């Protein structure tokens, strides 16, 4: 039973290195800086490159370029930096770039509180770029999960060729925790699916579009293998609406199909992404829901409530985007009351309300009452607050 005493930043860096990350570019920002420092120190040891960029825009721009040059890339920042990433997040979606982005949330709005914890970026990361196309977001709630979900983020980025966010906060990054070494989960990370060389062409250096169509999707949710610069194909990467060859087009059929593809390759495969820890108790009519740091307080509250003989179920949401609807349906089954705890004014609660209402309409049953437990002053939500809110509502 060997343990270590470790913070989330170290676990994320180790998860990235073990997942094969070999490129990092980012700009210093509290509270994400420890990840930059780890990567700057460690990446050269594995022959990788770490750059402190001139700003956040250059940081994510270099990462996207590096992926087309053959790298596995990661960047990390906090809310203000995500604002600056915004346009390039769209570029990574459009160019179908596998990329891992760590958002170490801090209190907003604007520069907010640099060393103050918050969960205020949940809707921002989902809708933070023009056009409204999907991304994937995972939220670890322990230091051990910082490791395993970073690996998972790299895996999903390759599977879906899209930006994958790991959403954490200051508490998760900088607080120390004790971890049993054997509990780190070695989540498998797939290799990049690289477009194989063309066969049967006269001169493979030319007429590349006859042998490899980088943006041809059949069926529409299929993810094409990636052709990197310097490989067997001539490849065009473009941020503008394009045809199957990567040439600019305004043809509504082709553009519509491309945009449909960007959505459906993720939205039709939520079963490969959905992650959470559901702790159901028979006979419980109350369900606690939380994610990230807040889930720790929830689990503490849960064990206290059960020790006192109460029946309560709890769900830790690990994959925030796309919304894990199947998991939520399972968790909501038979539940009359839901308490959703977040360090914001209910950003994820609205997603749960939508799922619960759809459920109610479909099953012709009354929807559960859904309450928020919310803090936005930078203080953590305490386990006692779950219990107080719960007891306050018990007749």
């Amino acid at each position, binding site marked *: 039973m060997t343990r270590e005493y470790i913070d989330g930043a170290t676990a994320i860096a180790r998860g990235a290195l073990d997942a094969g990350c070999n490129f990092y570019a980012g700009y210093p920002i509290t509270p994400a800086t420890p990840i930059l420092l780890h990567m700057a120190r460690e990446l050269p040891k594995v022959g990788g490159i770490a750059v402190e960029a001139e700003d956040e825009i250059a940081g994510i721009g270099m990462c996207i370029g590096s992926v087309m*040059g053959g790298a596995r890339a990661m960047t990390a920042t906090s809310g203000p930096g995500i604002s600056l990433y915004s346009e390039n997040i769209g570029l990574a979606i459009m160019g179908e770039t596998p990329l891992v982005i760590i958002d170490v949330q801090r209190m907003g709005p604007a520069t907010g509180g640099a060393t103050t914890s918050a969960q205020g970026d949940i809707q921002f990361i989902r809708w933070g770029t023009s056009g409204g196309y999907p991304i994937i977001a995972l939220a670890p709630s322990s230091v051990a999960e910082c490791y395993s979900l970073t690996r998972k983020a790299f895996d999903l980025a390759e599977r879906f060729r899209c930006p994958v966010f790991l959403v954490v906060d200051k*508490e998760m990054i900088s607080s120390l925790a004790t971890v049993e070494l054997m509990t780190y989960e070695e989540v498998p990370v797939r290799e990049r699916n690289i477009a194989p060389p063309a066969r049967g062409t006269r001169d493979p250096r030319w007429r590349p579009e006859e042998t490899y169509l980088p943006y041809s999707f059949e069926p529409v949710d299929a993810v094409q293998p990636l052709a990197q610069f310097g490989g067997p194909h001539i490849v065009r990467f473009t941020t503008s609406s394009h045809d199957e060859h990567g040439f600019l087009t305004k043809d509504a059929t082709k553009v519509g199909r491309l945009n449909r593809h960007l959505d459906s390759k993720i939205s039709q495969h939520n079963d490969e992404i959905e992650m959470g820890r559901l702790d159901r108790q028979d006979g419980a009519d109350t369900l606690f829901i939380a994610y990230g740091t807040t889930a720790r307080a929830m689990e503490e509250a849960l064990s206290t409530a059960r020790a006192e003989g109460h029946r309560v179920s709890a769900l830790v949401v690990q994959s925030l985007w796309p919304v894990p609807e199947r998991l939520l349906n399972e968790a909501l089954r038979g539940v009359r009351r839901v308490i959703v705890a977040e360090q914001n004014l209910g950003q994820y609660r609205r997603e749960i309300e939508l799922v619960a209402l759809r459920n109610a309409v479909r099953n012709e049953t009354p929807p559960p009452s859904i309450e928020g437990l919310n803090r936005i002053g930078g203080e953590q939500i305490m386990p006692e607050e779950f219990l107080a809110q719960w007891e306050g509502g018990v007749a």
Partner: protein
Amino acid sequence: MTTPLKPIESYRNERKYPFCPGCGHGIILDKLNEALKRLQFDPHKTVIVSDIGCVGLSDQYFATNAFHGLHGRSVTYATGIKLANPELNVIVLMGDGGVGIGGHHVLNAARRNIGITVLVFNNMNFGMTGGEHSVTTPNGAHTATTPQGNPEQPLDIAATVTNNGASYVWRGSAFDKTLPDHLVEAIQTDGFALLDIWELCTAYFVPNNDFNKRLLEGMLSQVKSGSGVLHRAERPEYAQALYQFAAKQAGKPVLPHKPLPQKFAAAVDRKMHVVVAGAAGGKVRSAARLIGVAGVLSGLWATQRDDYPTTVKSGHSVSEVILSPGEIRFTGIERPDVLILLAPEAVRKVAHYLPQMTADAWFFVTPEFAHLETSAKKVILDAKAAGVRWPKLSAGFMAIAAMLLHTGLLPMEAFVEAVKTTQRPAIAEKNLATLTDVEKLVALLPKDNA
């Protein structure tokens, strides 16, 4: 088996340029094609990165790899591509608009000396969006946004990169017959190369200013920093420098685990919350970390949560440590079992705990806080009375050591082992040397509340 291939006759594809009649873009692109033909690069190893504006269309007319990205950010993508695969030839095509919005990146790419070639298609205004003025519009020139004449000074991008680390810089006109020679030279340069290529925008700048080729060439001959090859320098290229650095680091252990196997036993049978409140810059966090390490070495679970302002060596620094015989989920603290208060900066942060603390809790303070009221057992660490030194940088360490010694919360051997395993030898030695003074301090304390 490789078959020898015939020389490549053109790097253009069959697509026709979409530019306005008389536009300089096609002229420059033809000259780029001429340079590539002379270089005979493998098109698979060549990437044209295009910016935005009319020039952003350009990559579509070449049969090389292409990357078409956001406005002004072309240099950042090019940098990432080159860093990931230094054997690629990376050529950036950007306009004066891109130099404006992305000037920061151009400047930093030059400073780093990343091995890319940047062609600035400088037609002194925004062609695609309607002839607005750009950062290179000459003073006094008429554009859609400067109908009274441009009051701003133009940016001399060639001089700027010359003075900030570029390896090769050329300025001239799109009509210059030697342009292909200079493109060849620029592309063959190891480090950062930039060509500031002046040209005509026949849609806007030409009609708005009665501008023409003769006037353009006249302006070029008068520019203060000159024209032609402005700069040649040899210094290490950035990607090569980074890979050379990485080669020296190869084989070193990568973020190794630091296991803390149990060697000691602690008499902690419930969750214990310890708060250490001091001044930032007083090594509070690193000293508090020793409690957790000593706890884990004693078979316990530990967590530590820190609170501090954005400043580095001023303001408060509060560390909250939990020790527990079982796994800890939540790292926050409602009410401490032990509170150590060392600095006035931290009083505000922890004063609310004092009324909540009960008679079985401990409150360790320096004499200046002896007046603070609480039901907890108050222990005054009086360095003066004990005749020992109490340096600011050691106060956190000494107070924690005194607390452990007085309360017996964790074995002192575990604490000493924590110092030796986590701190650098010189710091560990210095810290351990204070333990004699700590013993003197603790010897003065009344035994009845231990």
